[in-house]
């Protein structure tokens, strides 16, 4: 039973942009593994590296940041800032011996359901190959 529950992915989505896309993926019945869990924050550039590290510590295999991209309601700097969060975290991951590729980021616009599902499938595949 339990091996089915791997790999576990934590997705950070954003309230106004990427979460609606994830919602729509459900609406359109585009399936992705149920081992993908979402936590929604106001803006992807406000995600703390320690949260991501916490997720890895607690057993998540991968963390995915569904970033706002240029659609961010808080301004254009979002993309750069989110990238910096990823960079900082990946550095921390390396220090802890975690593979940086276990953290992924992609801009998901508010109707990018298909790209999201593709990302989830690909990431799951990658992580399961990686993990076992």
């Amino acid at each position, binding site marked *: 039973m*339990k091996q*089915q*529950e791997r790999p*576990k992915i*934590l997705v950070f989505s954003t309230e106004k942009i990427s*979460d*609606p896309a*994830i*919602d*729509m*993926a*459900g*609406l359109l*019945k*585009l*399936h*992705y*593994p*149920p*081992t993908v*869990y*979402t*936590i*929604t*924050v*106001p*803006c992807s*550039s*406000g*995600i*703390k*590296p*320690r*949260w991501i590290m*916490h*997720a890895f510590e*607690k*057993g*998540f295999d991968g963390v995915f940041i569904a970033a706002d991209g240029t659609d961010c*309601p*808080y*301004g254009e*700097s*979002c993309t750069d*800032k989110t990238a*910096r*969060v990823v960079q*900082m975290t990946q550095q921390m991951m390396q220090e802890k011996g975690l593979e940086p590729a276990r953290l992924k980021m992609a801009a998901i616009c508010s109707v990018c359901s298909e790209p999201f599902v593709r990302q989830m499938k690909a990431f799951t595949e990658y992580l399961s190959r990686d993990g076992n």
Partner: protein
Amino acid sequence: MRKKIGVYICHCGVNISDTIDVEHVREVISREEGVVLAKDVMFACADSSQKEIIEDIRREGLDGLVIASCSPKLHLFTFRSVAERAGLNPYNYVQVNIREQGSWAHSDNKEGATRKAIRMVRAGVARVARSEALEKTRISAVNAVAVIGAGVAGMRAALELANMGTRVFLIEREHFVGGRTAQWGDLFTTEETGKQIVGRLYESVRGNENVTLFTGAEVVKKEGNIGDFHLEVRIRPRYVRQPCDPEELQKAIDVCPVEVEDEFNFGLTRRKAIYRNYESEYPRAAAIDEKACTRCGECEKVCAAVDLGQKEEKISLNVGAIILTTGFDPYEPQPGEFGYGEIERVVTLQQFHRLLEMNREKLLFRGKEVRSIAYIYCVGSRECAANEKCKGTHKYCSRYCCTSAIHSALTARKKFGDLTVYHINRGIRTYGKQEVLYEQSCQAGDLYLQFYEDSFPEVSRNGSGPVIRVRDFLTAGRELEITPDLLVLVTGMEPRREDHIGDLMKVPRGRDHFYNEIHMKLKPVETVIDGVLIAGSCQGPKNITESVKSALSAASKAHYTLRKGELALEPVLAEVDREKCVWCDECTDACPFDAIQPVEYKGKKVASVIQANCKGCGMCLPVCPQNAIELAGYTDEEIESMIDALAEDL
């Protein structure tokens, strides 16, 4: 303190329960710590369920509520208001999305979906257990607005705000109102001239008790934030008192020994240091040009109203919002650009508008009658489209010039009879209803030539007049030659060259250097500086209608923000732990909204969030090396507890 939490799991008809074993989820959750009540409901959003939830909250004295149903985008506000009605803080409510991100997304895997749902609801419970009751912060707001720039946009914004009941301070840098519109004669789609519109608006402004107009005034200092700005305004003296005897004034103008270029006529004419713009200028009072005046005192001798002893004033204003309507500057061609400044009979479009106004029976330029006119379009606009070597920086289209030039040609025909007119353009952009003007002009016999994106017309001299050579795109690239009596360069719009107010307000500029809105469609008149709005052509090229529309939009935004005299701020704000903070300045850099400032705390400098400016985006969180900032509703504790719950094995 442990919370008493109530959990409701929605079947959503069969939408959720078809895939997720709702009963099982409920059972598992009911055993969670802190959960005093776990129910499953057919439709949580139905009226009957809402009533049931309210009763439960009251009866059980719940202080945390979790509803696992559809996406919060649909019903977060519904259930927050349920919580509120039951006396529960709405921020102690968490919605768990087990439909869009549960049953629907995983309808192919019932077991997996059920397990995911359990974890998600647990995470919701964990979050609610740690959530804080948040209250909207209310700050008082002054129901007054400073409108900076008294052109049509500024005056319209001011009037509308005043009519809606907001106090307005209208601040104009020049001694006369009306901005660019006052300089235009006949206008498209109306029988009114620019001057008449300005006159009408000025009279309304003067007659409106809610508007105070300052001319010759500039904002020199800005402090505070939305709802409570403090402005310091410097008012330059006019040196001419009211009332002023017109004959005496004329004498004063006559005796004035100083002559300077008249900006009102774009340098076509000269004026004295004591001057007026035009017969019916607004306000109807002459002024002395401070910079040009030599203080010789001649005028004072012949005109009783002149008072060179007037002193500059400074006043302070307290306003809740600021609307910038500072307008544009016409593009000034480089010396020699299409013969400008080198060949006598070459003028800009703006100068030509003035020529049309100033001449009566015949169209005269420097004493010679003009019977043929050539226009060269896109001077200072759409630069470098195809030409890498081009030095120009104005990549944008100035939007109004095609129509304005064509309209000026038609006006010239109307006023001075049959003329020969050449429009050497780059693709006419008379969008919308303005197209009819283009058609009228063709029908009237205006000739349109089009030059290539990468091959500009060449202008050389023939006596005092220009000779234009152009490869005509419309005639299979044939090279044509035209020798008009007058060449008009259709110059576009530029951002104000002198723009200290923009710097003062810290308004961001776009790539085109005009003021930039937050979002062209969602927040078209708002800037990232809360409470500072932009309207009119300071935001980008616009015609009069478009400027007025944006001005009125800005007025309505300003009005509804301030009308209650207080502002309710979303409680999702950043909070700084002052103990931890060491003021490294990282967060101020990260904040796009200028919402963090240093304050003194226990003898050290620490960051402090200006609540009125904070938008709750969280951009400052990850950059803090001390982890001293948290976002209300998204604290480390809350997020990490959710992660724990999601990661937990079943």
